[in-house]
């Protein structure tokens, strides 16, 4: 049976752990709100870009000299996977989920005889995958030192990918990240980047089909400028969603940890009181039986 002193020590240590997890939960909640606002603020640009792309893509699709970003190289032998994960831990299964998802995908692709290249964005996913797939890494990017990830950071990643495409280093590029469904659920998902998945031109919500646009300069030239930008926007959105998801997951994890610590404290306190009472009873018995013996 543990001594009273050791029980007291354990209770105190669990109590301070609970204080820490509680504070982390509140910090995560505040950061989650900010991350969600940023994701919200980025939406108008993405929406309008999508609308332009839809009308442009329809105009250019099927032409033999369509840009590579739109139609890819035609092959699918070399696959570039951009895996986006969090930079920090203590967020429950968040980073492990995306890591495992990526691992399964890599195994599946390699099982089909394809070459896989990995571009890891975020430190945690990189360390997870490095053990098994270290030789497939082409680059590793981390925003750990940055307070806020801005659009320029996403544009840098996009520029790297475009550069690799021009050098013919891969045929197909896909983005793996945790899609932010809501605060408590993020699902790992895959999104194809190259060849670009051009959204279907939808009829306007206000009614009637999309207007027929004129283009200046030509469709091809605008598209050539728009596609790299669109790539950056897609990556930026994935990074923002990962960010929001990370804090959501961290908040849930820390909430659970706080609750578990509370349970543990209750159990230990009960144990402590029982032990204390047992000690008193034992002492009383000793005194009484001593008195009787006299």
């Amino acid at each position, binding site marked *: 049976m543990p001594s009273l002193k050791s029980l007291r020590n354990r209770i105190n240590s669990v109590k301070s752990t609970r204080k820490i997890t509680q504070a982390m939960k509140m910090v995560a909640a505040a950061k989650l709100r900010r991350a969600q606002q940023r994701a919200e603020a980025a939406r*108008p*640009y993405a929406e309008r870009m999508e609308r*332009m792309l839809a*009308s442009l893509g329809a105009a250019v699709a099927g032409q033999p000299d369509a840009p590579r970003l739109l139609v890819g190289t035609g092959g699918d032998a070399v696959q570039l996977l951009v895996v986006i994960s969090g930079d920090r831990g203590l967020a429950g299964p968040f980073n492990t989920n995306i890591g495992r998802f990526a691992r399964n995908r890599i195994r599946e692709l390699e099982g089909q005889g394809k070459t896989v290249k990995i571009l890891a964005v975020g430190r945690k996913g990189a360390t997870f995958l490095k053990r098994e797939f270290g030789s497939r890494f082409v680059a590793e990017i981390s925003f750990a030192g940055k307070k806020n990830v801005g659009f320029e950071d996403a544009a840098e990643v996009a520029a790297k990918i475009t550069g690799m495409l021009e050098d013919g280093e891969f045929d197909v590029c896909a983005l793996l990240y945790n899609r932010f469904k809501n605060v408590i659920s993020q699902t790992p998902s895959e999104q194809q980047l190259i060849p670009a998945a051009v959204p279907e031109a939808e009829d306007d919500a206000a009614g009637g089909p999309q*207007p027929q646009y004129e283009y*200046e*300069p030509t469709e091809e030239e*605008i598209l050539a400028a728009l596609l790299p930008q669109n790539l950056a926007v897609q990556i930026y959105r994935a990074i923002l969603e990962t960010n929001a998801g990370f804090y959501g997951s961290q908040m849930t994890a820390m909430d659970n940890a706080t609750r578990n610590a509370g349970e543990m404290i209750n159990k230990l306190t009960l144990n402590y009181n029982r032990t204390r009472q047992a000690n008193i009873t034992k002492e009383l018995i000793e005194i009484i039986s001593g008195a009787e013996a006299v």
Partner: protein
Amino acid sequence: MATFQLEFVSPEKLLLSRPVEMALLPAADGQMGVLPGHAPMIVALRGGVISVREGGVETESLFVPGGFAEITPTRVTVLADEATPVAQLSRNEAEQRITAAEKVLAELNAEGATPEKREAAMARVLAARAMLAAAQSA
């Protein structure tokens, strides 16, 4: 006078959205004035100043370093990485950008990069020069 909705959107947020009477856009093939009821168009923008007219006077001029604009009869949406009011442009920063952009261009020329890459670098040099011109005129 009739108005249309002018929207400035950067990848990070919606910068501006309000009804205006006329906007002057630096389109890739030349300056372009847009009035309400314009035919639907998608244009690429080069680096330059967008000026806005309301109530018959020029009320605002913003510098954009390139981007796109979607024009419909009732709305103009400008997609740009940034939009700075001309009065807030700094000459120093413009000069720094010119130097940086020219350096990149020179490097690309030296290593014989693809025409597309050089063209993009050239566009950045021109955008930076436009920025300096705008800063000086302010």
